[in-house]
């Protein structure tokens, strides 16, 4: 397997290089998506299936969809024409900057190597296994994400919500209208697959307590189902009431998380310090609301700005 790992590592570097250096943006996006898929394989090889799931669903799938929808909004000439390089490839300025970055890269690599040698080999895994029964779940990754280090996860969801708020504040977009595609193939296919998407999303959410899964992959699958429905021309009409509920759905993950934390604080436990007998139920509640919110937020980012209520 060492040969396989070596080829995988080299391919990752080559794909990163390609996605940065290729002159047309379309090719760069394709390289980036291929990089995401291979990165997921690399995480599987590192025995981290949770991260592999998240990388495949969010890093490759949804980010790819986001980048493609961005490309689709660029003027045709900008998206497909080679980017004109503004770099002057000679002269003292060029050599000085190139030298600076090379020296910096080499120094950073050496520092990284030394910090790797310094790493304590057992890490925190043993401690985690010891304390796992207190967490209320059986999957160590979920225990870290939603119990021991749940503050980090609150912040992640807050950052995602902030991204949606910023995207909405940039302006409004026309809500995608219901349309009939020239061929019935895609709508039929999406009609067949949507139940599977929902099933997988719920299954990932439920499995999170004892196996790889959880709110982030589950939300990503939910968003993917929504994006496919949009691409197949299936949407709903928007009205003020729809926007009202959409705002609540976008925010519910963060609200439930923070509300749970503050109530625990008032009850005298500390922010997001779960009492042992409540931990399992609290984590499930938080995961479900976070999963729904993450799905809605990723989809809102795909649509772009704030849906224009007057466009429908």
């Amino acid at each position: 397997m060492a040969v396989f790992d070596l080829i995988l590592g080299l391919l990752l570097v080559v794909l990163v290089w390609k996605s940065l250096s290729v002159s047309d943006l379309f090719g760069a996006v394709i390289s980036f998506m291929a990089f995401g898929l291979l990165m997921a394989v690399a995480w599987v090889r590192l025995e981290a299936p949770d991260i592999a799931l998240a990388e495949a669903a969010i890093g490759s799938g949804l980010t790819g969809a986001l980048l493609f929808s961005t490309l689709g909004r660029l003027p045709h000439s900008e998206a497909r024409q080679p980017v004109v390089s503004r770099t002057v490839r000679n002269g003292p300025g060029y050599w000085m900057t190139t030298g600076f970055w090379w020296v910096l890269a080499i120094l950073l690599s050496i520092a990284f190597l030394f910090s790797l040698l310094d790493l304590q080999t057992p890490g925190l895994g043993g401690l985690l296994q010891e304390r796992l029964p207190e967490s209320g779940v059986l999957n160590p990754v979920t225990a870290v994400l939603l119990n021991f280090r749940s503050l980090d996860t609150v912040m992640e969801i807050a950052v995602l919500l902030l991204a949606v708020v910023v995207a909405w504040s940039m302006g409004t977009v026309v809500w995608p209208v219901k349309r009939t595609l020239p061929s019935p193939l895609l709508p039929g296919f999406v009609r067949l697959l949507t139940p599977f998407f929902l099933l997988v999303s719920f299954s990932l959410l439920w499995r999170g307590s004892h196996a790889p899964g959880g709110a982030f992959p589950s939300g990503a699958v939910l968003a993917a189902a929504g994006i496919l429905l949009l691409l197949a021309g299936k949407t709903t009409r928007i009205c003020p009431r729809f926007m009202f509920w959409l705002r609540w759905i976008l925010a519910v993950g963060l609200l439930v998380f923070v509300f749970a934390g503050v109530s625990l604080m008032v009850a005298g436990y500390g922010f997001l310090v779960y009492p042992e007998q409540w931990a399992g139920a609290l984590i499930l509640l938080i995961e479900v609301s976070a999963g729904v919110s993450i799905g809605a937020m990723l989809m809102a980012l795909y649509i772009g700005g704030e849906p224009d209520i007057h466009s429908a």
Partner: protein
Amino acid sequence: MMGAADIAGAVLAVAGVLFFLAGTLGLLRFPDIYTRIHALTKADNLGLGLICLGAAVQSGSLMTALKLLLVWILVLLAAATGASLIAQTAHRRGIRPWARQE
């Protein structure tokens, strides 16, 4: 020591990889989008089927075999739909199928 199931699984997986190779060769060498997509979709679907079959034989568990079958069916559906959509879009944009120059 390899059992009969291991050997059969390995042979099936290698056969599947050969189909992937053939499909990739077609993608690189065929003259236009329609023939390329034809080679890729057909050969890769069969290759994936053989690899899934090989993995199922090696796993020796019915549950895993059924999961692999489900994976294959879903990929078949997605690949067929995707290939058909790409070909339709190309056709609508007026890309003519390749024909041998007389």
